[in-house]
């Protein structure tokens, strides 16, 4: 796997104070609330969290994929190679999206156009971004399908999406995302709809592609297992905020934030068989109501009055940061 190159002064992508709110009839939903992170060239960053924690909205915001209205990016910047993605015009974004930053989505059934042959969808990025001639583009398309492990690529490229299985469609999505050799791949739960055996194939494929091409990957998932094997660093999100961030090993081995700790205790794979699983009391907060202090406080077993005060993500170790007032004061040992 590729080590991040520390030689560059600027990270590949630097996100600062991103806030994405949705203005709905029922109030303002703070889907992403002050999120900052960065990713180096060739690095793999995992973003984990439960549904509604803001992991997808974070990445959609970066690529201008938030429907506006009702959504609005309230503040923040996302510097990608000296360009602020959040301030780009659509035309500028179009030069970056699908070329230097590619994205794959959860559901390969709905993200391929059922009326178009694989060929036409697959080579579209080349025709648009690289002005490749059609014949050359088809050659590259066949090669891209071979690279992701599709047999008889030269024939299969003429098929329609419905002729492919779910795993093969996701391979096509990956081939399409990688065909322009992007610097950054954003993968939004790409294996959630797939069987474990196919999931293992896709993860190996992304790892291999990354090693060959040195691209950076942001992998969004609710599955702590997938992230453990794939990512070098992990951001844990809760209620629209990053609550803990650090190298994968320390996120799993020595969790600092009570939410991250509780999450680890509630998955069956890490617990002795048949033992009662730890459950987090209560439910995630309603994001349309403003939360001043720690959003996890109402469900946290370590909560005290001090947790009502605003809390920030603070560095507390090499590359590790936690947003928990009591952990920052060294009052809780998990």
């Amino acid at each position: 796997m590729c080590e991040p190159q520390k030689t560059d002064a600027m990270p590949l992508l630097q996100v600062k104070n991103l806030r994405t709110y949705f203005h709905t009839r029922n109030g303002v939903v703070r889907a992403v609330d002050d999120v900052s992170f960065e990713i180096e060239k060739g690095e793999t960053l995992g973003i984990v969290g439960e549904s509604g924690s803001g992991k997808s909205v974070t990445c959609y915001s970066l690529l201008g994929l938030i429907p506006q209205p009702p959504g609005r990016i309230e503040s923040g910047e996302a510097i990608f190679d000296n360009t602020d993605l959040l301030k780009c015009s659509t035309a500028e974004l179009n030069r970056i999206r699908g070329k230097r930053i590619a994205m794959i989505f959860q559901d390969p059934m709905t993200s391929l156009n059922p009326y178009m042959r694989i060929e036409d969808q697959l080579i579209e990025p080349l025709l648009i971004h690289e002005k490749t001639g059609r014949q050359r583009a088809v050659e590259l398309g066949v090669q891209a399908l071979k690279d992701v492990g599709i047999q008889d690529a030269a024939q299969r490229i003429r098929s329609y999406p419905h002729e492919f299985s779910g795993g093969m469609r996701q391979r096509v999505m990956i081939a399409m995302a990688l065909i322009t050799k992007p610097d950054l791949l954003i993968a939004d739960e790409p294996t959630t709809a797939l069987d474990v055996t196919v999931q293992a194939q896709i993860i190996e494929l992304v790892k291999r592609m990354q090693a060959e091409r040195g691209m950076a990957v942001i992998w969004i998932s609710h599955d702590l297992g997938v992230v453990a094997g794939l990512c070098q660093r992990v951001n844990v999100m809760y209620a629209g905020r990053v609550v803990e961030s650090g190298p994968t090993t320390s996120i799993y081995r020595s969790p600092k934030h009570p939410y991250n700790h509780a999450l680890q205790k509630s998955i069956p794979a890490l617990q002795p068989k048949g033992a009662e699983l730890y459950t987090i009391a209560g439910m995630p907060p309603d994001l349309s109501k403003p939360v001043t202090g720690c959003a996890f406080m109402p469900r946290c077993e370590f909560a005290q009055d001090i947790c009502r005060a605003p809390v920030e993500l603070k560095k507390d170790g090499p590359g590790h940061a936690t947003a928990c007032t009591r952990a920052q004061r060294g009052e809780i040992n998990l």
Partner: protein
Amino acid sequence: MAETFLEVAGLKTHFPVERGVILRRRVGLVKAVDGVSFSLARGEILGLVGESGCGKSTLGRTILQLIPPTEGAVILAGKNLAGLNRSELRAARTDFQMIFQDPYASLNPRMTVFDALAEAMRAHRDISTGEIQDRVATLMQKVGLSPRFVKKYPHEFSGGQRQRIAIARALAVEPKLIIADEPVSALDVSIQAQIINLLAKLSREMQLTLIFISHDLSVVKHISDRIAVMYMGRIVEMGPAAQVFERPLHPYTKALVSAVPIPDPAREHQRQRLILSGDPPSPMNPPSGCAFHPRCAYAKADCSQAVPTLEAFDPTRTTACIRAREIN
């Protein structure tokens, strides 16, 4: 082991594939369940795993006679469910219930929780309104919901709470067997834990026999006493949960277990993975012999000859692989 409570013998569910509107002709046969036999004791939890399309849901539904079996018997407490007529089957349904994957789709949005639970009770016997009210309240408490919520509608609940309501509805007729088809797959990790704990507790307290269908092996391993692994309509391996998971016998189980990601970076980087190539074969046109042989790392010529039967490997475990002794 205790006395047999549920026995499934040679169960087959075949679906004809037909073409044409007026002149319908049969163009194929999908053997969704193709000769499954096992037995369970009272209070036992069986985990049923396999990839999508392997027939695990069809097997669950066929056991409960929601799909008529093509062949075979389902003997529940001495009664063959496959041989019952409609009214007998209806009477027998109080003994077995089902919980579905999607709690958003399996509850009627126009019925309050009270109506949903009361309907199940009234459907099977005459019961006074007062008694219904008492029993609904008890059921709600049993699944961890406050009886104050009985007048609410499904949309007012979260996914985890809805799954609790679905469980309460299944329990309303006091069944002895519950088949839960992917009951936690649609839920978030922290909510999954609550539902798994609840099902384990109910099974223990009420001596419920539970068949837990899931594609998530770590969940199945956690809750089950025994695990059955299905591939292309047949059970390929069956045994005590921890053993199947830690020392799988059948090459397919080995690949399945190895594909499950471990949420521990150190172990995840160390281990050697067995990556299966390709997708499961088309059920319309299954491979000859052992259905797994085209994807199997251990396959040899004999494997494509005859369909291997499920045979005892040791006193507690069975597997359907002719090379099981050689490769283990």
